[in-house]
């Protein structure tokens, strides 16, 4: 398959290791991975903060970057950004864009996937040949869980990783409190949510807290490092891309 990576603005700028892990993983699985350089951001921050007209150029740019028949699928290491492409782009396009944009949005969104659903549903793999000899807990991010309904797919992938010690996160499906600009506008409520997430992570005794969204990991990781908990955050893609005998990826230090 010819797969276009959607790095996401946050992944490209702040968490490039999650994106390069995605690229290496899909390449290792035998696919032709490309990176359309025109891409920037899905526009979710604008839509979720109420700035839909300002999201229009970003929706257009996303479609321009990936509306290419030579691309079989667009894959992003983010449930949240894929959720925006799948559920919000059509709202912005139908309200502010042309009819032709609406059609192109439909075409591109139909082939846009979050990493775990792409691996399990489209490629039909759960064992990607990864090796990760560490204690890991997994936080299912809200948008992957409730917008995309990825369900158990990330856990199926993690369970197939050799030597991993996967421990269940208590209250796993509770939001970590990130919520984009929510973490700024309602910083104190967000912090109260994060506090409970951090104690649940701590209760697992995990070395790594993993998730499919760098944004939520940035939030959880920001709390873990502030409190010097000794637990690192790591994107699901980085675990799935690590192979024996390569040195384990570092994650974000605590």
């Amino acid at each position, binding site marked *: 398959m010819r797969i276009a990576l959607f*790095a996401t*603005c946050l992944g*490209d*700028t*702040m*968490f*490039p*290791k999650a*994106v*390069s892990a995605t*690229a*290496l*993983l899909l*390449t*290792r*699985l*035998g696919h032709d991975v490309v*990176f359309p350089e025109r*891409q*920037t*951001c899905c526009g979710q*921050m*604008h*839509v*979720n*903060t*109420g*700035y839909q007209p*300002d999201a229009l*150029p*970003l929706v257009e740019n996303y479609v321009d970057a990936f509306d290419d028949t030579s691309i079989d699928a667009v894959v992003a290491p983010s449930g949240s950004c894929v959720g925006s492409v799948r559920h919000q782009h059509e709202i912005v396009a139908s309200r502010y864009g042309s009819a032709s944009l609406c059609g192109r949005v439909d075409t591109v969104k139909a082939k846009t996937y979050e990493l775990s659903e792409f691996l399990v549903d489209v490629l039909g793999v759960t064992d990607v040949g990864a090796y990760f000899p560490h204690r890991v807990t997994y936080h299912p991010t*809200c948008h992957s*869980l*409730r*917008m995309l309904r990825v369900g158990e797919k990330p856990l199926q992938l993690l369970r197939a990783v050799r030597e991993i010690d996967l421990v269940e996160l208590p209250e796993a*499906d509770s*939001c970590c*409190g*990130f*919520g*984009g600009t*929510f*973490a*700024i506008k*309602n*910083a*104190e*409520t*967000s912090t*109260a*949510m*994060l506090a409970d997430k951090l104690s649940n992570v701590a209760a697992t005794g995990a070395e790594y807290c993993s998730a499919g969204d760098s944004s939520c990991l940035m*939030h959880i*990781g*920001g*709390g873990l*490092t*502030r409190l010097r908990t000794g637990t690192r955050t790591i994107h699901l893609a980085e675990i799935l891309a690590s*192979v024996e005998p390569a040195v384990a990826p570092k994650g*974000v230090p605590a």
Partner: protein
Amino acid sequence: MTALGMPVVPPRGSGNLRGLEKFPDAARQELANPQLRRNIGKATHTIRAKRLNVTGELPDWEQLRDAGAAVKTDVLNRLPELLVQLEEAVTARGGVVHWAADAAEANAIVTDLIRKTGSDEVIKVKSMATQEIGLNEHLEEQGIAAYETDLAELIVQLGHDKPSHILVPAIHRNRAEIREIFLREMPDVDPDLDDNPRHLAAAARKFLRHKFMTVPVAVSGANFGIAETGTLAVVESEGNGRMCLTLPQTLITVMGIEKLLPTFRDLEVFLQLLPRSSTGERMNPYTSMWTGVTPGDGPQEFHLVLLDNGRTAALADEIGREALHCIRCSACLNVCPVYERTGGHAYGSTYPGPIGAVLSPQLAGMDEPHDPNASLPFASSLCGACYDACPVKIDIPSLLVELRHQKVEHARFGPEAAAMKAASLAMSSSRRWTAAQKAAGLGRVLAGKKGRITNLPGPLAGWTDARDMPAPPKQTFRQWWASDEGRAALAKAREEGQQR
């Protein structure tokens, strides 16, 4: 006004639909209340588990939710004709129907009806609609004493407090506080009353029994009103509602106009959806229904006050009207991670939690500068737990996003809008975006040797008050992709792929 005398823009609702402070400010105080955090955390977790048990056991739960949503969509599409049908049916059975455009009109109608009975006391069934219009406060000003008969509502009323949950209004109180409230406020209370819950309930029971037997007028809300038959329905757990609905001479029911169901048969769907979503029970203990008046049995005078109070304004919003499907079960409150930490008071309105964050601005508006209601659509991390829990499938996260859009449309251009515009411009071309990424890389200076940013300026300080921000990496992904290192890594992965 149009030629027909109808207002072009439907009026907004008034009453208890707006707090005094914006959500983040109100939440700050609530977050610091350990009693509230503990009580609400415990109660919401308990109800969550119960709800999941009783919804999970029904093989057709999803179809029931679809049916509930479909009935409510139909009701909103045909609201005017169904309301007229309800009025005709109630009138035919000996009831009297009154129409109230807003809180003030509804309060005036109810006051007038009570005065005509000659009583200066009323007993009340727990009701969101009368909370919404501030009926108790209004009656008090008019010299009429209203007694709440639901135990938790009584605690709230005697404590001169406000409910913090739709279903469990005194969720924020502990038994020591309740004892103290009873000792201070309840007439003829045993001065040796302790804080044993059974004893507290018995004290309330004794006080209320006397009211049930002596007060000749009751005021209720309604969970459902059936257009086909004119039947009203109240579901409850304690039996106090049944007392109020059957013992007094006069019954006055205040019902929001969206509470309609077309036919009696529709109750089949909603009497399954509501208790399972609300208390996590298969069936609520008491379901009372009445149709007009029956000579020699129950209240001999029945008045139905149909309340608009902003509902028509909400109905005019093609996207937002979905919120009028709400059956006030409170499932969305119980699963909400924000509500779980802040409780209901932070929302300022009768309707707290996720649905309140939608309904309050819709009913009462949010367009005034610095309107506290304008902060409510932002009081959510958009985690989506509410949508999954809603028995009538209200897509609350999408409605919150829509209201954020409406708010910004009406707001004056400010620093946030400027920042969003700038971000939009930077991100709409990869050339400008890579330049912006270079600037973001300067964040490494802020991080210094520790590799973490611990002190961001301006509004971003909210983040670093409690969390670090990682330093931007030396290389963006696109730089890695174009680098020799990136190309070599990909070539190696390709080789490994061929060996697999």
